[in-house]
């Protein structure tokens, strides 16, 4: 007995000293990571019902989230791999109420004249509503009586009662939430809306029947907030938005994007879903050609698979949105895209698979059977093998309650994962030092001396900001490969990105040419669909200082953690069926996590030091002449023109073939390329060409489905060029053939 006491007295100080986290069950001022779901459909969603999920309700969904097995729509039991800490069921609001009509004899509605009528004509009313819904959505003329609070409010109320019943403060949080399902022209503009408190929700949610415009949703949200309800919107599947999730000039309804638009979005839509069952929305290899991990769970698809169309890539990914946001901040004085990051499911099965080992699809009968899935079933135009397990959201909060978790969403102290439970902390400040990480109180120091993910860096206090980044693996998944910091910055209407490897597992050395850390390798045995944790780390942490910081430029930083390669679900299920893994998707994946960004905004004074090109308007004032089609043809067609990007100093040549094709040559990989120029390095090296067209005084090219136009101005004997996505700056200048192209050696032949 005596020895026990001695041991206890020895151990307790050790326990208390353990790195920076207190007991999970009492509020922790240094915050815990709570993992949960922002995007879940049940049979109450109209489309889920069509897919064959006809029985299970939000109550079942909460059961599943807490660890109980529930039936898949096909009947077999499904159980979550690790129970969640919180969830909001987000059924489509569009059909809320239709279901209930005429079926609740106890409702107030049943006693009104309309209600009685509805009961009497029950089944036909459903038909009527469906016909009307279809017609009214096509016409854009919804019928008000279908949206009346008494009716729509009932299912909404029932949904909220189920959330209340499932909510157990401290153990499990259930949010009142729904999905606003705007899909104009097959473009996914959907948003999930979360309420802080189920006691403070509107009588009924705002649906896309009322308006398909996000601006109207935000206006409605503002109104709710004025009425004392706290709520936040989360956009999702930017990858299916056909370039409309992050517009830069006008929104999808043609409204100019101005300061008011930006403020409204920032006030209401504070988060975006970076990954879900239908692919990731972080970035695309065409937008991030130098990011070797961008080629991950790409899903190119438009809802409904409209004939003759393919989703536009620019405008459909979060990283580009963040870049355009800070460029708009620089060029126009407002940033509509200061969004935090979450992950989500979008499963229509009432339940969600988060892991490769547990993938049961997300669309009921369409992907619920292993053979159906692995046969590459074409579900409304989508080969279901491209689906993948759901993403997950981590919230850094003091405790597991609605108030604490909602506040975390509001301040964007959120991170998304590919479905695994990687814990990721990320802080930015001006006085962090690597030494701080050796202490046990580093989280406290990090909060005290800087800001967490989702926030703005405080005004500059040093030469360059430092970032504390820390990640611990999911104890049931692969070890960690590396942590990267993705930086975006803007200058003179152009935006740039760079991915820095900041801390990694093992003894790997940076590649001396590229500075990148080589791949970690793979332990995956593809035929047996297994891997081992003999490579990689359990925990990675470091303090990183931006080596390229410029205090005059807008910037953002976010952290990305990568796991070692593990088998993709298709590889696991191929093994189960005794077939070869399908080649349409990779055999392995590197699971990952993404933090919300931290932004840096220069002071007005500092901004003045930033070098900027003249704006088109300035050139015209000086007497520059815009070239017309004939002048453009004379200048370009059948010629090779040398140009310089005056922001980066990069020089390159374009061969304008008479057949309407052009090639760009001599793109310097050492120089960061401005956004939305495509994979120019690779194309230059391989000599690949792309089409151009001279029309309407513009040279037009297409990148990833979006048109980009260049206008050229002659001033004196000089030609300047402006690209349509660079906010009015004329950043390019035509030059004579340069004597040298390299930047590593300065050599002047004439001075010899």
């Amino acid at each position, binding site marked *: 007995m005596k020895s026990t006491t001695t*041991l206890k007295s*020895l*151990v*307790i100080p*050790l*326990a208390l*000293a*353990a*790195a920076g986290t207190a*007991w999970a*069950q009492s509020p922790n001022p240094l915050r815990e990571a709570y993992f949960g779901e922002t995007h879940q459909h049940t049979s109450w969603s*109209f*489309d889920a*019902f*069509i897919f*064959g999920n*006809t029985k299970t309700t939000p109550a079942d969904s909460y059961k599943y989230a807490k660890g109980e097995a529930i039936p898949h729509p*096909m*009947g077999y039991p499904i159980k979550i791999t*690790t129970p969640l800490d919180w969830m909001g069921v987000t059924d*489509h609001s569009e059909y809320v109420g239709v*279901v209930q009509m*005429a*079926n*609740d004899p*106890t409702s107030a509605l049943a006693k009104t*004249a*309309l209600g009685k*009528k509805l*009961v*009497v004509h*029950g*089944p*036909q009313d*459903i*038909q009527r509503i*469906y*016909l009307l819904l*279809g017609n009214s959505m096509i016409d854009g003329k919804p*019928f*008000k*009586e279908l949206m*009346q609070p008494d009716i729509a409010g009932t299912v909404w109320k029932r949904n909220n009662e189920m959330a209340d019943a499932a909510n157990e403060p401290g153990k499990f949080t259930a949010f009142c939430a729904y999905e606003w399902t705007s*899909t104009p022209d097959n473009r996914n503009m*959907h948003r999930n809306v979360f309420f802080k408190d189920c006691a403070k929700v509107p009588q009924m949610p705002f649906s*896309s029947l009322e308006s398909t415009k996000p601006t109207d949703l935000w206006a409605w949200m503002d109104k709710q907030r004025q009425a004392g309800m706290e709520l936040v919107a989360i956009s999702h599947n930017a990858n299916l938005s056909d370039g409309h999730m992050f517009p830069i000039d006008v929104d999808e309804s043609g409204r100019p994007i101005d300061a008011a638009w930006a403020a409204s979005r920032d006030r209401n839509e504070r988060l975006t879903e970076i990954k879900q069952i239908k692919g990731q929305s972080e970035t695309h290899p065409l937008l991030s050609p130098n990011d070797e991990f961008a080629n991950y769970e790409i899903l190119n698809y438009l809802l409904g698979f409209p004939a003759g169309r393919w989703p536009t890539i620019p405008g459909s990914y979060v990283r580009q949105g963040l870049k355009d946001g800070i460029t708009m901040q620089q060029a126009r004085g407002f940033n509509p895209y200061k969004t935090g990051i979450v992950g989500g499911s979008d499963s229509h099965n009432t339940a969600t698979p988060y892991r490769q080992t547990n993938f049961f699809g997300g669309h009921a*009968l369409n992907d619920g059977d292993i*053979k*159906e899935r692995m046969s590459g079933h074409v*579900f*409304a135009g989508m080969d279901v093998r491209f689906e993948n397990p759901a993403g997950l959201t981590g919230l850094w909060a003091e405790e597991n309650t609605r108030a604490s978790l909602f506040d975390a969403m509001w301040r964007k102290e959120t991170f998304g994962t590919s479905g695994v439970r990687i814990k990721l902390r990320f802080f930015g400040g001006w006085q962090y030092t690597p030494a701080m990480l050796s202490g*046990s109180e580093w989280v406290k120091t990090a909060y005290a001396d800087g800001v967490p993910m989702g926030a703005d860096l405080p005004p500059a206090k040093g030469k360059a900001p430092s970032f504390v980044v820390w990640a611990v693996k*999911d*104890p*049931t*998944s692969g070890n960690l490969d590396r942590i990267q910091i993705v930086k975006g910055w803007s200058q003179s209407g152009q935006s740039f990105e760079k991915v820095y490897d900041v801390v990694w*597992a093992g003894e790997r050395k940076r590649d001396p040419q590229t500075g990148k850390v080589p791949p970690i390798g793979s332990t995956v045995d593809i035929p047996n669909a297994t891997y081992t*944790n003999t490579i990689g780390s*359990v*925990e990675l942490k470091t303090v990183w200082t931006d080596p390229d910081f410029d205090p005059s430029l807008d910037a953002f930083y976010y952290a990305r953690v990568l796991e070692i390669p593990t088998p993709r679900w298709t590889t696991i299920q191929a093994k189960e069926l005794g077939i070869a893994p399908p080649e349409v998707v990779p055999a392995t994946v590197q699971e990952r996590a993404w933090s919300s960004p931290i932004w840096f905004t220069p002071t007005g004074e500092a901004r003045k030091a930033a070098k900027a090109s003249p704006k088109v308007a300035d050139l015209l004032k000086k007497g520059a002449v815009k070239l017309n089609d004939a002048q453009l043809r004379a200048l370009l067609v059948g010629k090779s023109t040398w140009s310089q990007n005056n922001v980066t100093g990069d020089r390159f040549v374009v061969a304008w073939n008479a057949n309407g094709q052009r090639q760009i040559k001599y793109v310097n990989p050492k120089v960061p390329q401005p956004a939305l120029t495509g994979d120019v390095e690779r194309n230059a090296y391989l000599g690949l060409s792309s089409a151009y067209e001279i029309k309407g005084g513009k040279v037009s090219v297409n990148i990833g489905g979006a048109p980009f136009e260049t206008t050229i101005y002659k001033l004196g004997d000089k030609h300047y060029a402006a690209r349509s996505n660079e906010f009015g700056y004329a950043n390019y200048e035509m030059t004579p053939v340069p004597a040298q192209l390299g930047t590593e050696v300065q050599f002047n032949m004439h001075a010899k």
Partner: protein
Amino acid sequence: MSEPPDSVRAGRSRAGRWLREPLLHFLVAGLALFGIYRWINPAAFEAPATNRIVITPDDLRQMSLVWLAQGRPPPTPEQMANLVEAKVREEVLYREALALGLDQDDTIVKRRMAQKMDFLADDLAALAEPTPDELRTWFNANRDRFAQAPRASFRHLYFSPDRRHAQAAEAATQALDRLRTGHAGADGLAGLGDPFMFQGYYPDRSFDLVAKDFGAKFARALFAQTPGAWSGPIESGFGWHLVWIDELTPARIPPFDEVEPEVRRAWISDRRDEMKRVAYQAMRQRYRVVLPDAPAPEMKFPAPAGNVVAPEMKAPAPQMKLPALGGL
């Protein structure tokens, strides 16, 4: 008030028992479903609809009420006329659509109506409230469903593969030997393990919480250890651990009073499922299903129990008009 005589009480309790008899509930529910079904589906008993659309004063009141409920000033006569016209339009389109047979063979309509029937059963189930005795009896019969997982308060020493690579398990074993022989070193236990990323002490953790933090394998191993001694090494997803359990509460079935709200929810949920099942069976018995001689080769799903072949079960994917309505 005086006590009622025994005979009355007996009669009451008999009646009470009878009233709480599930079979009666199902009969009543089945009848109600059937009645409502007949009521809402009167087409067979009525003359075909004429081309008259009747708007009653009640309808007008309802329209203006909805209008006002949206926080707008009262509708002008012109707005009112528009509301009426919208209603008329809806009715006209609806009747024309019916006349064209657009409601036929529409999976959406069929499924939605089926779902309405489910909701109806839900509502009926919700009308029934269990008595305290009934709930208690039911709890006693279903105690296992409310079993609580074992709980443990434990501390641990961590041996990190990041620091020790393949030697982490071996280091843990050596440390355990030293602990057991009392040679813990001058700096106590701190020198034995590596710094752990989270907590060193975990008070009163359920099996599920331990599994959440360390993985299920670790949780299973932890709960198999004997309290009051250092044991291990146990492997978690993070590496190797020596554990000391202060206190271990075995799995238990809580008393009724502790979990009454939970029991009530489960009772209602069960009742709802049962109601649906019985109501469906009652309805199902009125149908005869004709099967094809040989199953179609493209049948991908096994026929459900009973004699139903369900062509509806075939995935209704590509031809659906769903995307125009949003969704996914």
